[in-house]
């Protein structure tokens, strides 16, 4: 099981600001190891952020996103205590879903 994400969701005015730091190697498949063999690609491909049963943001990522990816955005609505769930799926089919409540 991959390491948990760090998610912070903060209500400010009529918006909720979501900041996510994921833990992932984001290997491009371009690099070679010491023996000169290619290191296989391993990166997050899709990310979904849900609030109150609806997807507020969905993303497709390539290997060009930095290791331990960062995601920050805002959406309208959201009240303190409500849940925000972030889910990612990577190129090896591994996935991770974490939830936080809006502060």
């Amino acid at each position, binding site marked *: 099981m991959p390491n948990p994400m760090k998610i912070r969701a903060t209500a400010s005015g009529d918006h909720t600001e979501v900041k996510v730091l994921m833990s992932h190697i984001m290997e491009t498949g371009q*690099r070679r190891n010491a023996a000169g063999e290619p290191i296989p690609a391993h990166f997050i491909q899709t990310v979904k952020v849900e609030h109150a049963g609806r997807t507020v943001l969905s993303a497709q990522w390539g290997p*060009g996103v930095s290791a331990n990816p960062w995601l920050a*955005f805002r959406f309208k609505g959201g009240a303190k205590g409500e849940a925000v769930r972030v889910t990612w799926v990577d190129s090896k089919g591994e996935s991770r879903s974490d939830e936080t409540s809006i502060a």
Partner: protein
Amino acid sequence: MSPDRRTLLRHASSAGVMSALMAWGGWPAQATAQTASGWNKAAFDGQKLDEVLAALGGTKAEAAGDVVLLAPDIAENGAVVPFTITSKLPGTKRIALLVEKNPTPLIAVYDLADGTLAEIQVRAKMAQTSNVYALVDDGRRRVFAVKEVKVTLGGCGG
């Protein structure tokens, strides 16, 4: 863009329905070969800017001040270059980031729901000094902003 799409998105909870909708997408469906997981393999595998744009489908993009790409002038570490993309187009549906001289230029594509602000922060790898494009689509127009970022230490390969 039919108004039904938003309604559908709101009710689409299963992954299957989601990916079907994403395959349909906000961009014209031409040449959008999506994988089952809703990941546009053709676009992410494209090695030239033209290939990526073709795989993303849609009309020609125009340069306009409606998109703001915030990026450093010089990136000391190409492994982590911070970008902020802001669109002033009302009803922005999709935001994409491309680094022209990376082995695969397409970095990320974001699909925004109604009420999600068109301002996204992302950290990307840059192999070398390159033009960086922020591409934005509101369902009718496609506009981009471009900025050159100088890289002193590359973040790909090595």
